[in-house]
């Protein structure tokens, strides 16, 4: 199969075949990161710009490492150091970058749809590294890769996503991806964190974590952002953690071999208890990070014509 896309903007528009191709390609790249010399010359001479308008450690580093392991030249631009502070528009920034002929632009932006604006304007490939509360496709791909490795499949699995769904791009991308791949997705969170008409995405919705995780194969916990408290979507971290924290007690409701995931960074003791987060028998959180590099290598490779 040939990979025909110019951009990776979301999981919504990807087909099952495309997702499988990306995951298989990523699996073949996993080994490179275990070598003594972690570098192959596949993308030598290619330029990748990481354009980050929002703070990020994990995702930006992961993209940078992915590019470097494939021998591409990677450049990081963050909003604080760029012309954004001088008032340049996203479009002008993009056109200027385009004029320097990079091959791929990776963008993270707090405004939903910003990567789409860029993709319409510039001829380079755009990878969405997270836009607002819309999508975070590379996270969903690495999550699917992790699930597949631990469970041998995705189809037929029951997956619970718990927390602030409303503000989560990780949740949206995973709902699309996991549903496409045949998993059953259930959600749980306080009513104030469940966006309107979310059921229409084909998911079951609960208010209690216990109802959602009963008998599931995978639990995905989302990060609670403290600043959301100002929007009155939850009264206090104390109350939230008492009712929505994944702990030794409620995890017993899930399948015995359940795996626990988290896109990070985790709030220990808020949405996940430290002993669960650190328990190697169920927590695959660091494994997700590991897969992230492989998935991003695969996308850079496929978008720069590697599939030909």
């Amino acid at each position, binding site marked *: 199969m040939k990979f025909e896309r110019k951009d990776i903007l979301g999981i919504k528009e990807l087909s099952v075949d495309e997702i499988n191709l990306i995951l298989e390609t990523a699996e073949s790249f996993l080994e490179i990161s275990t070598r003594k010399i972690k570098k192959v010359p596949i993308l030598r001479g290619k330029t990748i710009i990481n354009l980050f308008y929002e703070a990020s450690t994990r995702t930006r580093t992961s993209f940078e490492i992915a590019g470097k392991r494939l021998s591409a030249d990677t450049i990081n631009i963050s909003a604080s150091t760029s012309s954004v502070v001088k008032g340049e528009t996203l479009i002008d920034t993009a056109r200027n970058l385009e004029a320097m002929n990079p091959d791929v632009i990776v963008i993270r932006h707090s405004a939903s*749809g910003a990567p789409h*604006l860029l993709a319409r304007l510039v001829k380079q490939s755009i990878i969405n590294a997270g836009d*607002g509360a*819309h999508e975070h496709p590379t996270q969903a791909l690495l999550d699917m890769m992790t699930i597949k490795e631990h469970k041998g499949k995705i189809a037929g699995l029951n997956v619970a996503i718990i927390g602030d769904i409303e503000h989560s791009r990780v949740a949206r991308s995973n709902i699309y991806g996991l549903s496409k791949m045949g998993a059953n997705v259930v959600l749980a969170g306080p009513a104030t964190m469940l966006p*309107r*008409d979310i059921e229409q995405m084909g998911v079951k919705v609960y208010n209690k974590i216990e109802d959602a995780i009963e008998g599931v194969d995978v639990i995905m916990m989302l990060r609670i952002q403290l600043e959301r408290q100002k929007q009155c979507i939850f009264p206090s971290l104390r109350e939230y953690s008492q009712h929505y924290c994944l702990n030794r007690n409620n995890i017993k409701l899930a399948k015995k071999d359940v795996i626990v995931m988290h896109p990070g960074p985790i709030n220990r003791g808020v949405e996940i208890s430290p002993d669960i987060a650190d328990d190697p028998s169920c927590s695959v959180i660091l494994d997700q990070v590991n897969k992230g590099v492989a998935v991003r290598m695969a996308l850079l490779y496929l978008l720069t014509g590697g599939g030909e």
Partner: protein
Amino acid sequence: MKILLTGARIIDPAQNIDSRMDVFLEDGKIAKKGANLSKSLKSKDSEKTTKIIDLAGMILVPGLIDMHTHLREPGFEYKETIASGSAAAVAGGFTSIACMPNTNPINDNRSITEFIRRKAAEAALANVYPIGAISKGSAGSQLTEFWDLKEAGIIALSDDGKPVMDAALMRRAMEYAYSLGLPVISHCEDTNLSGAGLMNEGYYSTILGLSGIPGIAEEAMVARDILIAEFTNTCVHIAHVSTAGSVRLIREAKKRGLKVTAETAPHYFTLTDESLQSYDTNFKVNPPLRSEQDVAAIKEGLSDGTIDVIACDHAPHGRTDKEVEFEYAANGISGLETSLALSLKLIHDKILGWPELIAIMSVNPASILNLPKGTLETGADADITVIDPLLKWTVDVQAFRSRGKNSPFNGRQMQGKAIMTIIGGEIKYDGQ
């Protein structure tokens, strides 16, 4: 200048006229209507001094009125000027427009009102009626000098774009304005409920990850203003109705005999929030495009008379306001040049008949604003719109007279267009 318009179908809802006849204009007024006026003209030897225009196949109606526009001057001349907005109006078939006060400075005092009227007179195209601000700086705390503004020429009051959140201030405004015979136009939006919202709250805001503006942000304020109108026995006009719930509240208020009137804009009966999936900022308006059920309710409200007026909420913007991330983009559609054709579709779709639609776009807004317009009565101002109902055309924003090229309808196929706009007996637009 005398003009004889022959052969058109004349629709004048104010007089219950819908028939083929000639119309004779003299001294800026409608002088005579009747069959075969050209014959009597010959006998009176005035043929040389009269311009005869054959309008066979055309529909001739009272000059259309758009009671909700933003002309941006003073302050935002890069978006629109009173002259360019007036040119857009006449090209769209509108002879009279009312302009909202959210300019910079805000039209909250006599000098701004006078400036707008002077600029409109210099442009000498459409009749431009300024709307004054309810509160100083539209800041929502202190009433403007309604009396002084009225003497300067405003025809209504509104803090459009900056909803009046203080119910007590709204009550005082409605009482004071009513005693002066000035209608209050309410932009109904509870800004606590709309918050940082960017589009209609529903399935599409959820999948697009854009914060939602719930329908109740509008409906809660519609309900409030209806209650104030009832309690104080005054009137209120609800601007740009966009939800089924608002239609229901207004219908019920009218049934109880309250003095409540309402308008909607063409995009609220043409588009839904589904079209935002491309993140195209030309679809970003406030109130936002709503659901299919809301669109159906707006059409029903138009057809049963709940909604009195179509006004396009003409909101021209410069490229810099729209060519940005969706979140940062300005709200609004440059609507004057597409409003009529989008509204004519209601006739093709059998939602409204010709006389009903023409009333909604002429005599109804005239009566809400107390303007001596919207009719072809003998002796009335010769404000006339001539419509070619069959003309097929394609929207091209680059051909807009408006400086605002921000239209989600660019490229859309339309049927029906104003081909001539006559104001005070003078041809201000001739698209033939």
